[in-house]
Structure formats: structure tokens, C-alpha cells
């Protein structure tokens, strides 16, 4: 059991990981083919894994309907739409009218609705977060106000009223400075740390030092 649950998967990870690293440095057509082939494999596996995903989804909603848990009626609606979309897709193709109608008139407006809630959530998060409790919070509050004012037409109105010698203090100039200088410096510092962490984590996974993702102890 150790062979199948541990050693073989670790060997696959090691060979695949080292192999793809080598392909990155070797400019042969074989390398390009291997890299392209591995991407295709990932996509194929992801597509087949959807079967598992749909089974899991249907099972969890079926259990809800069977037990008549709270909100079980929504599970029935989920089944109706799942079956309806599959029939529309297989029957008339993904470019067919019915499938496109479902996408254009149900999926897109629903996604847009959920996304639009973000505006209100930003307001509520800002109301809680932007309080000058300490120096760091005060700096964040001032920066947020500058960026918000600079992004709306009101910022341009302020800029128009400023004399030429003070144009560098216009909200849009301050926003550009904030985003491109201190903001960019912070983003780059975070990304530097992330990239090094990704290298270290990849090394741990490729060489089998970290095996938590396979479940269980070493």
C-alpha cells in the first residue's frame, strides 16, 4: 500500500517536476512538445474531473431533497437547471440558441448581480476599516481618500481650480504618485517574497519534503 499511496506518486511528482524544469532550459522542439503536451493533459484531466464534480454536486443536493433539509426546494431548482442546461448543450450545441439564451439571460445577469453587491460591500468594509485608531490606520485612511477623490470627476474639478504651480498636488497626480511609487514598491516587495516562497514550496513538493497534500504523515 505504501508503494501505491506514497512511493509511486512521489516518483511521478519528482520525474514530472524535474523533467519540466529541464524542458524550460533546453531549446529543443521536444521540450516545447512536452510542455504543450503536459498542458493538454492538465486540461483533459480537468475536463474529466468535472464528472466527479457534477456527481458530488448532485449527491449533496439529492441528500438535501431526501432529508427535506431547510432550503431543499432550491435543490430541486438546481436539478431542473442542471438538466435543462445539459439538454440544451447536448441537443443544440454550445453555440445553439437555447444554450446561448441560458448563458446570456440567466448566467450573465446573475453573475453581474453578485458582482454588483461588491460596491455596497466595499462601502461597509471601508466604513469599518478606515478609522484613524493609530498612525498606520490614519495613513491608510488618508491614502484611501486621496485615491477615491482622484478617481472621480470631483478630483478633476479640484485640479481645474488649482494654479499651474500647484498642479502637482492635483488628486490625479497624487493618485498616480501613490500607485506608481510607494504602492508599486510595496507590491514588488510582496511579489518578491511570494516568488521565493513559490520556488521553496515547489522544491519541497518536487523532492517530497512536504507530503501533506497527499494526506497523512510521511
Amino acid at each position, binding site marked *: 500500500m505504501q508503494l501505491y499511496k506514497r512511493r509511486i506518486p512521489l516518483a511521478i511528482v519528482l520525474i514530472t517536476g524535474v523533467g519540466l524544469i529541464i524542458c524550460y532550459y533546453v531549446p529543443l522542439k521536444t521540450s516545447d512538445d512536452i510542455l504543450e503536451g503536459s498542458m493538454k493533459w492538465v486540461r483533459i484531466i480537468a475536463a474529466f474531473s468535472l464528472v*466527479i464534480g457534477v456527481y458530488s454536486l448532485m449527491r449533496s443536493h439529492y441528500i438535501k431533497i431526501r432529508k427535506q433539509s431547510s432550503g431543499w426546494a432550491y435543490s430541486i431548482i438546481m436539478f431542473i437547471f442542471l438538466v435543462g442546461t445539459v439538454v440544451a448543450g447536448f441537443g443544440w450545441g454550445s453555440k445553439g440558441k437555447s444554450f446561448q439564451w441560458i448563458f446570456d439571460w440567466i448566467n450573465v445577469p446573475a453573475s453581474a448581480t453578485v458582482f454588483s453587491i461588491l460596491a455596497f460591500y466595499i462601502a461597509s468594509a471601508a466604513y469599518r476599516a478606515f478609522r484613524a485608531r493609530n498612525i498606520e490606520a490614519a495613513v491608510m485612511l488618508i491614502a484611501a481618500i486621496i485615491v477615491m477623490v482622484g478617481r472621480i470627476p470631483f478630483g478633476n474639478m479640484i485640479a481645474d481650480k488649482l494654479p499651474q504651480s500647484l498642479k502637482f498636488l492635483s488628486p490625479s497626480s497624487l493618485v498616480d504618485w501613490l500607485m506608481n511609487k510607494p504602492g508599486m514598491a510595496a507590491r514588488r516587495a*510582496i511579489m518578491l517574497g511570494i516568488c521565493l516562497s513559490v520556488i521553496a514550496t515547489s522544491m519541497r513538493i518536487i523532492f517530497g519534503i512536504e507530503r501533506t497534500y497527499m*494526506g497523512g504523515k510521511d
Partner: protein
Amino acid sequence: MRKILIFFFVSAIIFSAFLINAEETTENLILPKLFYAIDSPEESDGSICLIWSKSPTEGKDIDYVIYESSSSQGPFEEKYVIDSFLKESLASENTKYFGPWEKYKNFRFKEVNLFVKTVKTTIKDAVTGKELLSYLYEEPGETVEKYEEDSTTGEEIFQYTYKDIESGEIKSGKFVISKKTDDKIKIINKVSTKVIAIKIVPKYFKLGMQRRGGVTPPLPIFLDKVVTAIPKINYFKWSKLNNLVVLFLMYIFVYYYINKAKKNPNIFLRKIAGLDAVDEAIGRATEMGKPILYSTGYYDASEISTIASINILGQVAKKVANYDSRIIIPCKWPVAMTVCQEVVKEAYIDAGRPDAYNPNDIFFIAGEQFSYTAAVNGLMVREKPAANFLLGTFAGESLLLAETGNTIGAIQIAGTDSVYQIPFFIAACDYCLIGEELYAASAYLSREPKIVGTLKGQDMGKILIVLAIILGIFFITLGSFMHNEYFNLIKYFFTVR
């Protein structure tokens, strides 16, 4: 005396006329002194580089012309016309091939490919699948290209030319690919193209210069020299050597500190508040009798951030099993779902509570971004988890999830490597792991010497980068004063190509 003056006056006029006309000829163009061809370094795609020194008579209306032939004796045909003012044709702009050396500022280059591909193109009717046309093309003059769009009918037209085997003529044909009907694209015919064979055909090149414009532009002038090169197979991308060296250094640091950590497991790790609060969050959920919600983020298990999140899940699931609490993991991807199921199951087995494991608590919920968000928000409102773990890469849904969690009063520990979502998590969550802390979390929670050792090695890499930044600033500044190209080497070494 008067006759002599008239003679000189008329001669001057005639001479001036010649001078004016001389500007419109190519006689005053000076050809480059050097022209040669080399195999393109670190490429194995059959390409060679043609390199020549800059002409002193380069100008805005002057072009370099490269002529090509299959034989050294000709006939040569015009193949490439390069604007002599084009910055991209400067060899010094391509540090991948030519390095940081100043001397290449006086050279120009053009990369040419000597591969000839045999391509099979098939055109099928989109509705019936019936093959309408299928042919191979490998001869000069045979092409498949030029998509045109007819603005009146909205038709996308595919044009091809091929050599008729019987008559030897180059013929052309057109097929409609798609049409617009009611603002929607309707596919009429499908085109597929496959490369059947590739061969290298030796070519010979000549370099010339010409002046652009004018009513009848003058003919180009040529260097007598004919150059050629044979493309070779290269086995290593030398421009990525810096990348490999830094990678090896990282590996050496990590290996060293893993061995050091095995001997002395007590390595100092700075406090990370978000990770210290994991126990508190799980304990709170257990006391309140409410579940814990765990999200692995936007991406599938093929992304390193999701794997890092799953590594943390292993530690969290062990604690949940020990506390006899419940963990719900709604997944956006089926592969991540199966991995999470396995990890949580093993965690419960390790804690001696295999009976407490419920596979129905780890499920696939939705594949689309906002479908997933809406479903998880609904789950939070119904199940009212006492603790939310949002660990992984997130996109626009980050604030939606975090705010809903805040609304239901859950303690929230978030962590992401998406730099644009970190501010939202900081504003809406109780604890936030920023960037690399997400990847360090599994080491922090498990305190396994081998994994903690890799953290130290990673920190050494950071020191290396900081040193490089400081030295780079110093040497580049010095280099700009002393005009010495060797000072730019450090910048060249740390540039990703």
C-alpha cells in the same frame, strides 16, 4: 572676361543641379563594412542571425534590404526591408543573443528562419462535417492566410494559394469561415491546419541599402559578399543561465538549512498572528457548536497557492479532528475537492477519529467565479460557521466572501498571494496572511524541521536579492559616470530574459 564669367556661372548652375539630383540617388550611401551570418544562439528552430555593422549614412528614409536565394550564384529576391532607424533591429537591444556589450550598439541584426514546413489544411463544412478541401502546401508561393472581414456582410473570409500539380500554376481560393447574423457569429466552415513535416533549406543572403520614397525610387546598392550559415541544434538556453544559477543557489541554501534544522530543530520563526489564531478559531467554533468553513481559493490544485492552502488544511483538519468539530469545504474545482477529501480523511484517521469524518462536508459547489461566491455566501448565511479560513488565490470574490463572513460574526483568517486582494482581506478579516506567509504557514503550524529549514533557505534567497539590489544600484550609478559597460553586468545578470 564676360564670356569666362558666363561660363563659370552656367557651370555653377549645372553643377548645383547635379548636386540636387545626387541627393535623390543611392550613390552617396555607404554600405556596412561587416556582414556575416551565424546560427541563432540557444534556438533549435532552424533560425540564423544576419549581422551587419551600421552604415554611417543611415537615415529616416534609408532602408536596409536583404535579398535571399537558394544558391550562392543567385538569382536573389528581395526578402526583408528593414528601416535603418528601427531600434528593434539594433543588436544591443537583443541582450538574449548579444549580451550587455556596448560594441553591439554599432551592429544591426535580422533573425531569419530556414525551416520550410509542409502543412496540411482541411476545410470542413461546420454543420455537416463534410470535407470541402484538403491539401498539402510546401512550395514557395503556397500560403494559407489573409483573413479578411467584409464590413458589409460581416463575413470572415479565408484565402489560400496553392501550386496546381498538373499545370504548375499558383492558384488561389476563398472560403467563408463565419458570418454575422443578428450580431452573432455563425460558423460556416471550419479550418484546421497541421504541420506534417519540417525541413531546413539552405539559403544565401546579400545585404543592400536603398533610399525610400520619390516618384521612381532608385535601385538599391549591394555588398558583393554573400553569406550563409547552417542552423545547429542548441541544447541549452544560455540567456537563462542566470536563472539556473539563482535556482541552484536557492536549492543549496534550502538543502543546507534543512540539514542544519535536522541537527537543531529549534529554529526561530517570527510570530505570525494569523497562524497563532488558528487554535483560537477552531476552539471558538467547537465551543459554539458551529462548523468551520475552509476555502482553498479560486484556482485548481495545479496552482501552487492551492497546494499551499491544502498543506495548511492538513494541519487545520488535524486540529478539527482532535477538537471533534466539523469542517465544511466548498470547492470550486473537482480535483481540489478530491485532494481535500483525502487530506481531511487522513487527518481524521491520524487523530484516531475515522468515524467522525463526513465526506459530504467536502463537496463541489460551482465552477464559475460568482456562482461559487453566491453559493458560499449562501452556505455561510445558512450554516453560520464560527470560523472562516479563506486561504489561497482569490480574485473579485475576496471581499464578497470576507464581508459575508463578517456579517455572520465569524472569526476570519484569510491569506492570499494576490497582491490586489490583500487590502480587502486586511479591511474585512480579523487576521490576514500576506503573500509569503501563506506559503510559510504549513511550516509554522507543523514545525517540522525539514520544512522550517526551507523557510530559512528562502530567507537567504531574500538576502541575496537585497544584496543584488544594493550592489546593482551602486554599480549602475558608477557605470553611468565612468561609462564602463562592465558595471552593467550585474544588472544583466539579474534581468529575466
